[in-house]
């Protein structure tokens, strides 16, 4: 097994179970920005909000497209910063929950 084959099964996004191989495949199908890759593979849409997967996905994208990491824009951050239960967003206090 080559290094690339071994890496292809490495989980990059553990919220959505996306592997390095799946990311490379999507990039080669033309999903060659993080916004597109996010929507195609669902990386960065889980509980961690992309904190875990985005830096790695960005490096893979840079390697596959021959760009510098800094040239690749990050997707827009979304509120809330950490997932919050609907009851708290609605104004309920913890003790009544």
């Amino acid at each position: 097994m080559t290094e690339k084959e071994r890496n292809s099964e490495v989980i990059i996004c553990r919220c959505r179970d996306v592997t390095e191989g799946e990311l490379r495949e999507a990039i080669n199908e033309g999903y060659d920005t993080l916004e597109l890759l996010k929507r195609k593979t669902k990386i960065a849409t889980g509980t961690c909000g992309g904190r875990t997967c985005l830096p790695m996905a960005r490096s893979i994208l840079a390697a596959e497209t021959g760009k510098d990491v800094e040239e690749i824009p990050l997707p827009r951050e979304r509120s809330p910063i950490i997932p919050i239960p609907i009851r708290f967003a609605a104004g309920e206090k913890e003790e009544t929950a």
Partner: protein
Amino acid sequence: MIDKDVIIIGGGSTGLAIAYYLAQKGVTEVLILEKDYVGSGSTGRCGSGIRAQFNDRPTVEMMKRAETGWNQLSEELGFEFNQSGYLYLHYTEEDLNQYREMRDFQNSLGVPTEILSPEEAKGICELIDISDVVGASFNPEDGKAHPFEVVTAFRKFFRESGVELKEGTEVVDVNLRKGDGLKLVETRDKTYQTTTLVNAAGGWAPKIGNMLNLDIPVEPYRHQAIITEPFQQGSIEPMIISMHHEDAYLTQTPRGGIIGGVGTPDWEQPTYDMTESLEFEKRVSEAFGSIIPGLKRARILRHWAGYYAMSPDGNPLLGEYKIPGHYLAAGFSGHGYMMAPSVGEGLADLILEGASDLPLDYYDPERVDRGELRQGALQMG
């Protein structure tokens, strides 16, 4: 010299569907110019719902055809159109009676809407709190399709069919050439010439209009939505609507998240600012928790804003506008995504044949200049 037969500005569901139907009718010398990426505007920000439960004949006809179109597209392009229905919950007898009349009207146009008892509504989604519900309306042919799966499927089709889709390509100017009236569509890299230009730029349609010194009566209103973490997979199949809870709508995505929103408050003004607001997060949470108490435990994962591109009467502007060969497909007022297949088919016919069997006259954009405003289409969210 002409570069393309048709140039479409805007790579959202509307522009993509028009290009698709042009290609189906044999015209593939088509260029779509998208300033960001496919679906990056209102399409990718929408709640994914598709319904024919409207209260005026043209919209019901457009949406009935659109649902047939969604079925065909899902088979031909390979994405899921889940006909899990739209379930309107009613909390007063007055509302229920109004929707009984609407059911009769929709039935007369071939839309199989039915009125359900609270218990029957609970049979469709067990999690609904029916203690204050007096009845519900349900059309099993309504449904949902995931916007990104849809635009992705179109993108793949265009790669294979010869339609050119240029993403990351902003139109910076449009001019008419003196003499022959050719449209010169300028991007940062290149200027394209065409006889036929379609403005399908959604909330940004007026900006394109300005380039041609046209005042396009569309205003972008911010509209927000949320998605939760996956929640009891398969538990909320239909799109659930409650006019009683600030026009709330919610459903479950294929991956289990609950997606939806509540209506835009009256104080919202037209804006190009797409920043989300905490005030919305509170209102949507109160509504969702009241309709389905179990959702109080669900955690909000993301919250975003998009546009309802409002026309003066809340109905689309479809057809040739002011300049021969210049078409508008804009001002959908919150219904552009769901209507895309019939708009695509209708505009393709209008461009190629000069006529369509769909009720496009109703949506003639020049009605606004003539002061012939229509009844607003039934709005929510």
